[in-house]
């Protein structure tokens, strides 16, 4: 069976992470990983919620060595945590925040991982080992698991490193504004650092002024791994931005104009990544210059009547894309938008079917539907919230929101939430969005 090394750093002194401005070497990382692997309780499934990206990476690697799978759900609402526990009853929560209240057996990331001077030896891991299970919300109310083997995860981000041209032997510092628990952040900060000999930055700055300071403080060459929401906020905040050596964006497409503006502000190239939880990353483009996306080598697209699939490369099987894409020749494609059911709010993904299911499962709700909000209401970060219309004569808006908060990520809570006597269903029982939007406009 093929084995893939945990990391590709060529020497024990190579930097694997930056933490509080200090370098952590590949050797120190391995010592932490081995030490944590020995101390983790014997669960086979671990929900790793460490906010510190370095600790997340140590946790992930320790799980990998100990034949444990890291669970990456799309949100940590009480409802989803219960479903995780049902999916894998031995699930353990690895956390670096003692105040965190996830309802699972907890293991606090130890402060005193012994820096035992074990000899420098990079472990290799079977390519077939189940490294992570990533969940999408599905459509029926139960999260859908997507199983990721170590070999395929590694192959995917090695292709990414080549595409980003950060595999040139220099140590690039990867600064992420995305959490390591999100598929994009997991791939483009944690796995990418491990599999391209580069260094992740442990901190995840949030406010624009903090992001700007973190960029300026990062050693060069430095890469900003971000999203349209965070990049728009950075441009709008009126903070001074130091140059970067590459900006990477994913979760939603950027326009060419905005991409060009970002390139000017950071004095470098911006590469957009296209991927999904199901497929991992499969394509990229230099948005300021081209519209078409170029697939990873070996990945290609096939089409059926109403769906496009990706296959080949790191993909284990033919995998449906949730977007409307138009394949071109030479491994390129155009992206024409999302399929009707897909919801993406600031990189958090769900589906209308799932959200409607959750809404209608609330006791007291007679009928209810989510629908896309009015894009004219988008804020400076460009986020448009969802709206919902609900028939629930015994509930008020606050009670409904409290119930929804238990079930769905806050990003999907509806604004506006319209309480109505009946939904404007047509003769076939369908709900045209146009009618729902009229309702919303009337309620203003």
């Amino acid at each position, binding site marked *: 069976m093929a084995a893939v090394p945990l990391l590709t750093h060529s020497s024990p002194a190579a930097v694997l992470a930056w933490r509080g401005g200090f370098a952590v070497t590949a050797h120190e990382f391995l010592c932490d990983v081995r030490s944590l692997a020995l101390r983790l309780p014997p669960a086979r499934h671990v929900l790793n919620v460490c*906010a510190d990206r370095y600790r997340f990476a140590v946790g992930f690697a320790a799980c990998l060595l100990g034949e444990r799978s890291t669970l990456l759900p799309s949100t940590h609402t009480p409802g989803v945590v219960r479903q995780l526990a049902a999916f894998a009853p031995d699930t353990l929560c690895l956390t670096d*925040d003692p105040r*965190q209240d996830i309802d699972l057996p907890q293991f606090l990331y130890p402060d005193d991982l012994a820096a035992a001077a074990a000899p420098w030896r990079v472990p290799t891991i079977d390519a077939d080992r189940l490294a992570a299970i990533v969940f999408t919300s599905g459509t029926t109310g139960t999260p859908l698991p997507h199983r990721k083997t170590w070999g395929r995860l590694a192959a995917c981000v090695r292709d990414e490193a080549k595409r980003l041209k950060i595999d040139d032997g220099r140590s690039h510092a990867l600064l992420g504004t995305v*959490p390591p628990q999100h598929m994009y952040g997991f791939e483009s900060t944690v796995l990418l650092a491990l599999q391209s000999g580069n260094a992740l930055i442990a901190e995840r*700055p*949030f*406010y*624009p*002024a*903090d992001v700007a*300071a973190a960029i300026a403080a990062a050693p060069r060459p430095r890469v900003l791994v971000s999203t349209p*929401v*965070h990049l728009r*906020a950075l441009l*709008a*905040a*009126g*903070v001074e931005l130091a140059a970067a050596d590459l900006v990477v964006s994913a979760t939603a497409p950027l326009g060419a104009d905005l991409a060009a503006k970002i390139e000017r502000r950071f004095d470098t190239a911006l590469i957009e990544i296209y991927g999904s939880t199901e497929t991992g990353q499969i394509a990229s483009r230099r948005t300021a210059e081209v519209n078409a996306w170029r697939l990873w080598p070996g990945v290609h697209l096939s089409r059926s009547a109403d769906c496009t699939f990706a296959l080949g490369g790191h993909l284990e099987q033919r995998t449906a894309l949730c977007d409307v894409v138009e394949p071109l020749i030479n491994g390129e494609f155009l992206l024409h938008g999302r399929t009707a059911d897909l919801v993406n*709010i*600031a990189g958090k993904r769900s589906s209308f079917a799932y959200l409607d299911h959750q809404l209608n499962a609330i006791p007291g709700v007679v009928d209810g539907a989510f629908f896309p*909000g009015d894009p004219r*209401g988008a*804020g*400076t*970060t460009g*986020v448009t*919230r969802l709206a919902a219309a609900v028939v629930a004569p015994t509930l008020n*808006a606050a009670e409904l*929101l*409290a119930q929804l*908060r238990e079930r769905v990520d*806050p*990003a999907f*809570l509806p*604004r*506006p*939430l319209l309480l109505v006597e009946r939904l404007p269903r047509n003769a076939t029982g369908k709900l045209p969005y146009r009618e729902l939007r009229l309702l919303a406009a009337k309620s203003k």
Partner: protein
Amino acid sequence: MKIQPITDKASLKQEPAPLADAGLQREIAALFVQALNLEVAAEDIDPQAPLYGDGLGLDSIDILEIALILSKQYGIQLRANSEDNRHIFGSLGQLAQYIAAQRTK
């Protein structure tokens, strides 16, 4: 995502903040309702209620929008390196007090 908005330590050393007048509080409430499409009228926001979680229900995208409003309207750049931020986002009243003390425009 879990957010713990926190700000710079300098503000901890400040003199007691001047009490924000009700006018500033109303102004901020109106800015938020408009920018965040909140499901509540500006005058109905309880100045003592928490801004996120079970109170006004703001999430991390809202906090980012608020950071931008504060920078544009009042010349304040929020930072996340002190426990103080927990206090600022504790309620509309506390936020108004912070703005009154820190504003540069």
